[in-house]
């Protein structure tokens, strides 16, 4: 005789009972819980009835506007992309070249100005002081000899 434990279990041999259970009194309490959820939702809708009504009226219209705006946006850019593809590519390159040029140019001048700014100003002021000294000398005590200047030039 075949050992019973080796017989493969088959569907027909399994007890056809519900193997699941629920917490105690679950079905007694469930209708009350549903009732309180529905009441809470109704209270909420009473607090904001006007807003809800307005929202319910506006919602489909806003959705329609959003869809139309979306199609218009896609249509406009799609049309531009199809009708002017070269211009878009060239302008992209130009933009990158411009930025590259500006970058190096800016960097270069910045470097120069950083290095030379103090010396250049010093020279300028020195030159200015010398000029003033000449003018002062020439205008002081009638040192300005017009005949000598005319003869010189």
């Amino acid at each position, binding site marked *: 005789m075949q050992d019973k434990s080796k017989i493969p279990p088959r*569907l027909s041999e399994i007890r056809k009972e519900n193997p699941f259970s629920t917490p105690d009194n679950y079905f007694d309490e469930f209708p009350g819980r549903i009732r309180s959820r529905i009441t809470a939702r109704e209270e909420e809708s009473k607090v904001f009835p006007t807003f809800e009504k307005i929202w319910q009226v506006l919602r489909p219209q806003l959705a329609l506007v959003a869809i139309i705006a979306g199609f218009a946006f896609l249509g406009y850019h799609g049309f531009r992309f199809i009708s002017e593809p070269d211009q878009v590519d060239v302008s992209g390159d130009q933009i990158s070249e411009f930025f590259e040029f500006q970058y190096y140019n800016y960097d270069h001048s910045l470097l120069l100005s950083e290095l030379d700014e103090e010396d250049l100003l010093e020279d300028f002021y020195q030159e200015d002081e010398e000029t003033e000294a000449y003018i002062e000398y020439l205008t002081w005590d009638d040192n300005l000899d017009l005949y000598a200047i005319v003869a010189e030039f």
Partner: protein
Amino acid sequence: MQDQSDKELLKLFRISSSRNYAFDMIVRKYQERLYWHVRKIILNHEDTDDILQNTFIKIWNGLDNFREDSHLFTWLYKIATNEALNFLKSKKRRYFLPFSDYEHSAGRELESDPYFNGDELQMKLQKAIVTLPEKQRLVFNMKYFDEMKYDDMSKILDTSVGSLKASYHHAVKKIEKYLNEN
């Protein structure tokens, strides 16, 4: 008799003074059948409880528009089934679970479920059912445990009777195979 009673409840529901009473009667009448239907799909109690609550909220919101073309219980089962299947889909999506992982996690959950009182063979049967594709699982549970008629199942699942019979046949074969191999 049952149809008459459902019709009466629907009539009472449409009168504002008896609306709450009628809905309460509908909940009491169908809560257990819907609970066990959802529980066999979902397996654990907490999720089943959430789904059952959402099902009855949807029923409350939609009962005014129920046209009585079908039986009330068919409509209720349909809502509960959709809620349960949507829950499963969102759960798999939320945890990025492929089907095989879902199968394993559902099996593990069942082993630690305090509200599962079955013996070893019943546990094995539930694990076998979890391995079935969604539709076969539904059909097997509804036919094998609930002993539902194919005509009623056809209305709930929007599937032909022939297709349901084929699904049940495949499901039984797969379960037998699983039980023999495990």
